[in-house]
């Protein structure tokens, strides 16, 4: 592994020059390919570029829209770099990292990064994973989980949450603080799916149990929609339509003692309360040359409330085991020490598998967010905490 000091030369060499998204809904009424094209066109236009400028494309491994489908549908004629990163929601920061790598190695100048899904009207994310008659045999290791009734993402994260309760005494109100904070921010963000639907702590506590200790409102949304960002060199971005948002550093790392499979095996890995984000954080802070105390605003991947609590500890915003009290202190609110998920995140904004967090990070540093944090110069964006995770630090251009 290269030393962190070697990375200094790459800091802030690339930027996000354009962002785009569709509306977020329960039923988009159109194909995922159409959504991807809309978000891509929107991001390209936002940057003041044209389709001919795009010479790199990066896909998330779980996207049904292949690079070929998108390149064909948009008629991209000048593509010379095509990449893919997994797994699912753990990928978006690393997708941007792959775009940076392509640009700094001379393989592309302007890279389109996209994620499109009909996550509610077509392939529901909260449904049973692969409910086939037989499980396993394809390197997914479902044979150890689904035959026993461990079928869904909420159950898998509930096992992590219960372990957090066992070790640290985490309370329902502490999990709820994450959900209620995201909802507050969504209610100040017109495009958020839960805009106009306020939620109090009492509402949270009254929501039905999905799988203990997780309630309905501990779970993120299922969304139809798409997002896209345009990555280019910082030098080039300065001449484009928008103030560039610099990519100070990206990082990607696996969990200790991990295995194949997606989320279910995580409870069998070395320390289920310290999965891949702990290692991502070490790399990221070293590469960025700054630490959690230097972060003004954070977009933290929130598939479940427990995901946020674990990452608050992993990224060093609070000591291990103290994320519950930290969240309950109000620290995550817009006026708190670490304003988080300022558009409502996956929980209340819209679940675009984590590329939504990148888009909101850019809005914050442009100063165009709906819940704008005054003087925001740095933003941490994290991606899913399961498997090989990733994160990045964005910085406002001087």
């Amino acid at each position, binding site marked *: 592994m290269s030393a962190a000091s070697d990375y200094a030369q790459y800091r802030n060499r690339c930027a996000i020059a354009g962002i785009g998204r569709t509306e977020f809904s329960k039923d988009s009424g159109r194909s995922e390919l159409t959504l991807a094209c809309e978000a891509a066109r929107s991001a390209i236009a936002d940057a003041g570029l044209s389709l001919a400028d795009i010479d790199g494309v990066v896909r998330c491994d779980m996207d049904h829209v292949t690079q070929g489908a998108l390149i064909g549908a948009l008629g991209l004629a000048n593509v010379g770099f095509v990449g893919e990163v997994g797994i699912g929601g753990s990928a978006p920061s690393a997708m941007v990292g792959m775009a940076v790598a392509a640009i700094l190695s001379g393989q592309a100048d302007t890279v389109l990064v996209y994620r499109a899904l009909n996550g509610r009207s077509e392939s529901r994310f909260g449904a*049973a994973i692969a409910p086939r008659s037989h499980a396993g045999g394809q390197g997914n290791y479902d044979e150890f989980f689904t*035959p*026993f*009734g461990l079928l869904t993402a909420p159950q898998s994260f509930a096992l992590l949450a219960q372990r957090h309760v066992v070790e640290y005494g985490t309370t329902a109100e502490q999990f709820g603080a994450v959900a209620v904070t995201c909802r507050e921010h969504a209610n100040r963000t017109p495009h958020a799916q839960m805009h106009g639907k306020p939620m109090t702590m009492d509402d949270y506590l009254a929501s039905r149990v999905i799988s203990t200790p997780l309630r309905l409102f501990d779970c993120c949304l299922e969304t139809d929609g798409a997002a896209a960002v345009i990555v280019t060199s910082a030098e080039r971005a300065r001449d484009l339509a928008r103030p560039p948002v610099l990519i100070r550093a990206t990082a990607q790392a696996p969990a200790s003692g991990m*295995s194949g499979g997606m989320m279910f095996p995580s409870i069998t890995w070395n320390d289920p309360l310290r999965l891949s984000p702990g290692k991502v954080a070490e790399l990221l802070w070293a590469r960025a040359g700054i630490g959690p105390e230097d972060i003004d605003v954070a977009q933290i991947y929130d598939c479940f409330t427990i995901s946020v609590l674990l990452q608050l500890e992993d990224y060093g915003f609070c000591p291990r085991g103290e994320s519950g009290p930290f969240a309950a202190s109000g620290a995550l609110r817009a006026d708190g020490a670490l304003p988080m998920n300022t558009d409502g995140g996956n929980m209340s904004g819209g679940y675009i598998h984590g590329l939504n967090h990148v888009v909101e990070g850019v809005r914050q540093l442009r100063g165009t967010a709906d819940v704008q944090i005054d003087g925001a110069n740095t933003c941490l964006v994290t991606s899913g905490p399961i498997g090989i995770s990733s994160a990045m630090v964005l910085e406002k251009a001087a």
Partner: protein
Amino acid sequence: MTQKILPVDFDRDTGPFFTAARDHRLVYRHCRDCGRGIHIPSQTCKHCGSLETEWREASGRGQLFSWTVTRNPTHPAYPVPYTIVVVSLEEAPDVRLIGRIDGAAELEAGQPMQVWFDDVGEGVVLPQWRPA
């Protein structure tokens, strides 16, 4: 009632776990070099990288590591409520196995658990766990 999901037993790394269960034996992968248990089972040790691993017979005793009472139905063959348990093997605590208990079980972290063998049809037997 709809058939429960059955594990395949042809995977070269994981199949022996399920073929042993058919004989009401609980086995886990053990590393002869570092002495730790390996789960998900594989021929290489995830702790030390050794290739010197083997299947070992487990005592069938363990400790409760985590659990969740599932109340939201997602599959007709798994009527709610039921409890998913995660159990660390007594002789190999790195090995954490999943089991299912009907209903909402009253459980406590660290409590002793005991394996039992659940014949789910088509010749498939699942090692399950209940409080000892």
